[in-house]
């Protein structure tokens, strides 16, 4: 073991400068795929020691762009240069790799939705009556925007308030075939009256005659 044998390092391939177009494209591609920032043509020319003109590079870049056309990644020009980026169509798949914590609806929204589901069709006044508190427009807007409720008519009382009902989309999103698949109200009432939280009690509980 001589001292000098420690010196050589991993031997790097020599840079040979007679490049064919295919090889040139490969280098361009590799540079753009590894760059942290968009690369302007002036920067890309450095790859070839400024031996290729901007016009030649522009042509090659177009070729690269063309080659990537059918992939989930595309070559684009932005203000500061060229860069690769993902296409919108693969986005939903990539997001599966970094799941977010699922957001939750507030109690007010869930109660409003429950009332519309069980008591439909109902007006905002009906909901307020049952919940015992006001229902903000924001809550109804959220549920309307989600496509879970819709206005199906108006009640013939002063002000002609809108009547809300749940939609088929709501059923789809909850994997229900029909609204009857929601837990029946009677059972819940009996559970409540039999002392509330005891969920193991059998169904043949005292009548809900009080209601």
């Amino acid at each position: 073991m001589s001292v000098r044998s420690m010196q050589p390092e991993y031997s790097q391939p020599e840079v040979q400068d007679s490049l064919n177009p295919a090889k040139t494209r490969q280098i361009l591609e590799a540079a753009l795929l590894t760059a942290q920032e968009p690369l302007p043509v002036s920067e890309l020319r450095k790859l070839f020691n400024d031996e290729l003109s901007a016009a030649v590079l522009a042509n090659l870049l177009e070729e690269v762009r063309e080659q990537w056309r059918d992939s989930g990644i595309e070559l684009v020009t932005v203000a500061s240069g060229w860069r690769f980026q993902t296409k919108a169509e693969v986005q939903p798949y990539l997001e599966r790799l970094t799941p977010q914590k699922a957001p939750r609806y507030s109690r007010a929204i869930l109660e409003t939705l429950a009332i519309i589901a069980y008591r439909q069709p109902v007006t905002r006044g009906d909901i307020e009556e049952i919940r015992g508190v006001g229902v903000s427009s924001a809550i109804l807007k959220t549920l309307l925007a989600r496509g879970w409720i819709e206005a199906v008519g108006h009640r013939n009382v002063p002000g002609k308030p809108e009547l809300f009902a749940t939609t088929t989309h709501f059923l789809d999103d909850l994997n229900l075939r029909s609204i009857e698949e929601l837990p029946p109200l009677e059972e819940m009432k009996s559970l409540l009256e039999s002392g509330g939280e005891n969920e193991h009690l059998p169904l043949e509980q005292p009548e809900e005659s009080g209601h």
Partner: protein
Amino acid sequence: MNLVIEAVEPQPVAKICGEPLLEIPQDLYIPPDALEVFLDTFQGPLDLLLYLIRKHNLNILDIPMAELTQQYMTYVEMMRVDQLELAAEYLLMTALLIEIKSRMLLPNPKTAVEEEHDPRAELVRRLLEYEQMKTAALRLNQLPQAERDFSIIQVRIEQKRTEQLPHINMDDLRNAWAAILTRAKVNRHHHIKRETLSVRAYMSQVLRDLRGLEQVEFYDLFSPLATVAEVVVTFLAILELAKELLLEISQSPDSGMIYVRSINAA
């Protein structure tokens, strides 16, 4: 006590500032001005000793101990300024070598125990282990290395995340409804009517059917494919809607046809 030009092997021992160093410290003596070179070239006393043994076929036994000690002391003295730790290590090595030498010179009692305890054994073991690691380090450095020999690809993900909407399940609705009921029970004045859910659902459906229409003939509200149960529920839904003033039912005095009209269409 001199540096000797190696005539047999003209290859440089090491390169210092690009200049090949052809001279090697054959007898372990390093002149003061070569100290830096020496420190750069060898990783420590083990490395130096290994070099001498491998390079010059030096037998550990034959190292001239007296001379060696004197020379070691000289550069230990020099190193003391800013390489105190390293100096100590070379000093330790000298001591070890002298110990080995002196033990080898003692008359051998020829006992079994002594035979197993060749004083050189431990040093040889350490030298071999160090040499093995030194070689491994070289091989390791020859492996392709990220950033040095290749670059890792990371393409930008362009779009912002699509906003995720809350998911709910039946339990959420059940709990929400139970919460409402609990409150209703506390505030007795809220009476919640008991009705089958299907009637409520059909009420919504009838309203949907009427949406945008002037009026609909009563029978058209019943699907020809409806089951008996569905017909009954639809009928109940229409009656309930009429009761809640959500639609009007009228009969033409002439034809006897019954028409259903949504209130809001009026």
